[in-house]
């Protein structure tokens, strides 16, 4: 099945339960309908208590964000892939993804692990900036304060769908509406 573009084959890549469906059924392409209304499903955006999923930090601990070096931080391309890749760390992304990417008028296409992906570039909402935060000086204790630094910055995100052409119903497109809704919820009210 992995005919071409074997990504670094050490990593397990999981496209989710969609995986068998592609080989077993011939999928019918549906026309993309013009969308006038958007269904912004709120639970996409969820509350969470801690950055650190592995260890619960205690309520009084603080995670400082070093922002002073942001000016010198490299700007990097950022891709949201429609699969879970069991790996954290370096990989030949440009060799296996960006090198074979085709840029069409309304969508980008790429073959990744034998799958046809369709993608689109999104800009960060107005007044917002993309940051990749990375923990530094990892300490063992849960009580201690932690520090994260800005390891990369970005102002555009390329997201990829499996098979479906990018459209305004894609959840990440809708998530980009959140800052504007948040402004309505949190902005100052008139007296």
């Amino acid at each position: 099945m992995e005919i071409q573009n074997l990504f670094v084959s050490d990593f397990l890549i999981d496209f989710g339960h969609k995986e068998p469906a592609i080989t077993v059924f011939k999928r019918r392409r549906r026309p993309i309908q013009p969308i006038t209304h958007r269904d912004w499903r709120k639970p996409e955006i969820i509350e969470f208590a801690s950055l650190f999923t592995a260890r619960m930090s205690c309520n009084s601990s603080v995670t400082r964000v070093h922002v002073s070096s942001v000016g010198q931080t490299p700007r990097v391309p950022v891709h949201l892939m429609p699969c879970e890749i069991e790996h954290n760390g370096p990989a030949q992304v440009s060799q296996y993804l960006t090198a074979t990417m085709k840029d069409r008028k309304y969508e980008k296409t790429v073959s990744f692990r034998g799958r046809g992906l369709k993608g689109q570039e999104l800009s960060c909402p107005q007044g917002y900036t993309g940051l990749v935060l990375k923990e530094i000086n990892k300490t063992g204790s849960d009580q201690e304060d932690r520090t994260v630094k800005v390891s990369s910055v970005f102002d555009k995100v390329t997201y990829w769908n499996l098979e479906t052409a990018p459209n305004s119903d894609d959840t990440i497109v809708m998530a980009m509406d959140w800052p504007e809704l948040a402004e309505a919820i949190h902005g100052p009210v008139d007296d």
Partner: protein
Amino acid sequence: MAAKKTRTPNVQNDSWVVIAAESVIDTQKQDSDPAFVRLRNPSTDAASLYMLGSGDVQLYEVKAFEEDFHSWFVGQTVQRDGRLLFVTPMDPLYLILPYLIKSGKEGKFQPVDQVVTDEEFPACSRLLSCTRSLASMHHIAEEKEVGSLKFHRYSQEKTMDWLKKKVERTVIALKKRNISVGEGVKSTTYVKVKSESDSNEEDYLRYAHGLISEYISEDLSKALLTHLHLPELTSPKETEPRSKKRKLSDNPVEAGEDYTKFNSADFARKPPKKMTAAQKSLAKVDKTGMKPLSSFFSPKVKAEKK
């Protein structure tokens, strides 16, 4: 064929992709770094993650956007955790309000720094440093000045008016972004047949009320509903007639397309799900708008597939 799904838990994650308000990294005033802090969530009463900007002048909310089976490529690295975090400015009054309500039961005017304290969440006193906190206290409390000292007492009446204005602002934003708020739209990923008239004013009010309710207690949420002259939705049947108008897709949701819908916000990664017959029928129920809105908005909802 697909590798055996023996996925290891993602424990070594120490990196996050964030979209943050530019003011977070504003390096003009560098007296201190911004910091993630844990504070009491006014809706759930449990810990949630927030951010205090440099010098504590601005509070930010931290929310995660998550879809199953997603990972990031950041430059030439892989990040398994496919979540996208949003750091957006937040009104500190939402977090101050529960403390004021609690002390308001005594009916006395009190200095706020004595009211906003929490042994479990010591960072809460820093909320009072936010520029907007003291300046907007009159929206939720009566104020009394004695000499140079200010005292406050919670006012339900003022709070309701303030929350109503919040709802009205939110309705405007929802309309501006063309966000569908009716109930019938939730599971129709492909079929968009709604027309302008389908989302009426009440739909918008209820949706906005639901959004605001994530920042207030359940009691307050109910009181706000009354204040907005919206009847409580007790039986799902009440919502049925309106949603029947909507044209629905006759096709069952196909398993192959299920992934396009955001269907799990759980932190715990779940094994891949197939759409069972039961789920299919549930999806149909969804389309007919049978689910009470209140369940959609319950604070602890984990965006579980319904």
